[in-house]
């Protein structure tokens, strides 16, 4: 158990170090451009599945499936966003490639997906669906 916790703490430390380096090296404008373009692409990729889900909301007997569907879309959105982010950040700033972005983004997107999962669950519990 202690071994696993230690491994986790080491991994988190490595992530924090990379995150610090990344924030230090990246210019605000590059960051902003990358975030905007990643969000736009992720929205365009998921627009049709989201609209299909919205169209099905009127069928109330499907509501449990739809909740799962929207939760899945949320997780996929985060995945697509990070894929795009990784792709566009090196386009706007080549020197960032020298950092191990793969590991940093993996940790970051898992954290965000976990937070999304918790929030989505809380909202559903609150609505009593």
């Amino acid at each position, binding site marked *: 158990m202690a071994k696993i916790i230690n491994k986790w703490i080491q991994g988190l430390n490595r992530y924090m170090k990379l995150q610090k380096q990344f924030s230090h090296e990246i210019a605000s404008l590059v960051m902003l451009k990358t975030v905007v373009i990643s969000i736009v692409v992720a929205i365009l990729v998921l627009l*049709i599945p989201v609209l299909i889900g919205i*169209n*099905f909301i*009127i*069928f*109330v007997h499907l509501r449990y499936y739809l909740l799962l569907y929207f939760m899945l879309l949320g997780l996929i959105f985060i995945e697509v966003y990070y894929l795009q982010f990784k792709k566009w950040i090196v386009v706007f700033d080549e020197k960032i490639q020298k950092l191990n972005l793969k590991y940093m983004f993996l940790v970051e997107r898992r954290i965000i997906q976990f937070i999304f999962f918790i929030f989505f669950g809380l909202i559903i519990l609150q609505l009593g669906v």
Partner: protein
Amino acid sequence: MFKFLNIKKIIFIIFYSVTIIFLVFPTQYQVILPGNITSFDEQISITDHEISRISSIYVISYEPITLFQYTIIQTFQNGQLFIPDASTQAMTMREKYDAAQLQKLSSYMMSAIVAYTKAEKDITYKFEGFAVTSLFDQERHIQIGDYITSINDILLNIETDFTQFRNAPILEFELIRNNERLEVTHERSESDLPLSLYPIYTITQSDPEISFPGLDSLIGGPSGGMMMTLSIYLSLVKTSYDLNIVGTGTIQFDGSIGRIGGLNEKYETVKDTMDIMFVPLEQYELLEDINDDRILPIEHINDAILYLSEYYG
């Protein structure tokens, strides 16, 4: 400028755009779809009384539906598609929601009054006026949520005969809007839409005390009136049945049962789970072909009470 475009990309963009249009483009149709049941133990609370486990059925009414929804409904044949009437088309989404909430308020108060009177329990109430739940026209001189108290100097009450105003060229309304008393004059024209009015009562005192937590819910409309009356009555006389009793129908001041919409969809909603379904007698013909002896047509709230006590009492 468009050098990056090749034939594959063009086809993809066209396909993507057409799909988006298919998913968002509104049609002129309204749909009624099977919904769910609402149990009255979440809608009403009576001091020291347990609320009978009786449920009302609601359906989903939605307009305008998209081309995609239209296709799905047509393919699976699981809803009633129709073009909404002029009154529905004249109202905004917000107005439709407010109208449905007013119909529910009217129905809740009426149910309590009828049930308490029938159970011979103390209840005092005050007539506030007739709530407007549809529009004459787009001018909105008379608005959704106005409480009309008199027309052409005739004070309104539950027994007012509205046919006396049918041919009046000018209608002078006295009404309450946002707690303010107003006088509004309306000149009749041929393009006027029918005005829908619901009586609104306030319960000033009741023994045992009753409250309505269900008034805060998003589900609106008057069609739960009959079942709510039955639920309150059975709770007051402390009678319960080990049955899954559902039903639909409006309640009138004299206890008679009025018409509702989406009866077939309501049956579809509960057909697998219910033991008894009370429906308005005057609409029974809509379900006659189904030949389900759990469907019981009734004309008056007394019919439901009698049936339950005779067969399950």
